[in-house]
């Protein structure tokens, strides 16, 4: 198990963002993290990437507890935050070189070149990030998450706002990455879950409502589509 989440809780003031969440994710499988807006998906992902700290509970990533090994864990995680924040005043190559350098990578030029090919940014690599369209910005966001070849990838709505062609490209990229990494991705699109996820975790109002493989979930609720299952569980 490369991610083990155990009874994680976090509140903002009086509001409980996530309450007692536990699940596991293993390498070579893609875990779909689902839930309505405001369910606590992003909060959980922020905690897993050691950006925020949990109030209670513990997450173990690659055998390391997140509380005491934040720096070590950050080296092994690639994280694409929601809304893809980027330094828009930088050029694509410059930004990726900056990211590579902040991980202390060697052979930065080569790494940047590789990742640009991987996410399909060749045509846009000399542009300023502010000049890119949303889909290409998303690719830059994905590139900064995978440039250091992390064991664990956490992607917060990686395909939001993409056109159908880009959607397919990014999905197949995530699928490829998922072959030897642990991938957690959050999404609202049920077709996406059906297309690329192996396991599913559904949360609603901060609480866990389903943890299982996609197949098991389907067998449990026969004759209903994934969308109906989602609505039933999170209503």
């Amino acid at each position, binding site marked *: 198990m490369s991610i083990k989440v155990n009874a994680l809780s976090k509140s903002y003031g009086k509001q409980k963002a996530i309450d007692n969440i536990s699940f596991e994710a293993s390498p070579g499988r893609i875990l779909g993290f689902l839930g309505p807006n405001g369910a606590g998906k992003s909060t959980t992902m922020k905690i897993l990437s050691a950006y925020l700290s949990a109030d209670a509970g513990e997450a173990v990533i690659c055998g390391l507890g997140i509380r005491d090994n934040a*720096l070590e864990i*950050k080296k092994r995680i690639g994280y694409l935050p929601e*809304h893809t924040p980027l*330094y828009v005043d930088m050029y694509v190559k410059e930004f990726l070189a900056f*990211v590579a350098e902040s991980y*202390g990578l060697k052979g930065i030029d080569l790494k940047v070149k590789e990742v640009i090919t991987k996410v399909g940014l060749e045509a846009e690599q000399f542009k300023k990030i502010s000049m890119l369209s949303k889909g290409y910005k998303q690719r830059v966001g994905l590139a*900064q998450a995978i440039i250091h070849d992390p064991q664990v990838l956490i992607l917060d709505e990686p395909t939001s706002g993409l056109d159908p062609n880009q959607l397919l490209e990014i999905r197949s990229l995530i699928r490829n990455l998922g072959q030897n990494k642990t991938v957690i991705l959050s999404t609202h699109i049920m077709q996406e879950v059906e297309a690329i996820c192996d396991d599913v975790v559904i949360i609603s109002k901060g609480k866990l409502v389903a943890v299982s493989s996609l197949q098991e979930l389907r067998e449990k609720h026969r004759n209903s589509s994934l969308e109906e299952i989602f609505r039933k569980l999170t209503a």
Partner: protein
Amino acid sequence: MYAVFKRELFSLLNSLMAYITIGVFLLATGLLLWFFPDSSIPDYGYAELGSFFNLVPFLFIFLIPAISMRAFAEERREGTYMLLAIRPLTELQIILAKYLACLSLVVVALLPTLVYYFSVYKLGSPAGNIDSAVVAGSYVGLLLLGSAFVSVGILASSLAKNQVVAFALAAFICFLVYMGLDAAAKIFSMQWIEGLLNGLSVNEHYQSISRGVIDTRDLVYFFSFNVFFLAWTSFVLKGRKW
């Protein structure tokens, strides 16, 4: 950490804001020291730069917050702080990178003023009739004063969401520690309070170094001042909810 420092410095040097503030700073010192008859060095008649070193702290109260205001406030507004926080860097490394980048810009702003020293050196009668030790000490004092103001600016930027608020807050705190403590010291007739407030005042220590004597007490003061404000910033960032 070097990567963050480099990016900060480049982004400061890429912004018009930096050039405008440095330009205004140089214009103001140039006008006051060489052109306006009431305060100009040629009219003053003595080959010294005392008026320059008295003027710069007041300009720094506005210049430095303008440079440092975007450090964290902008990242917070744009959500880009996450891009730093998810890397294997400690808060302190991020803070120091930003602090050093701002300080480098202050040095860039001060470098052209060496021309003033050169001019007075040449204009002296006979040429070279200037107390160079005092000038060197004063420049060290200015750098230390600048570093103190930068640490205040960095803290203000981490507290405020808005750059303008960060600027106003930093300018106010700089004003307070530079002049306010001096002024407050005069209010109290009790000697120990006066001594305490004077001991805490930036101006007091700056003046002391500007005499050309670099005293360990002043160095320790500026060092502690920086540590205090940067540690406070680190505390703020650790407790952030954004």
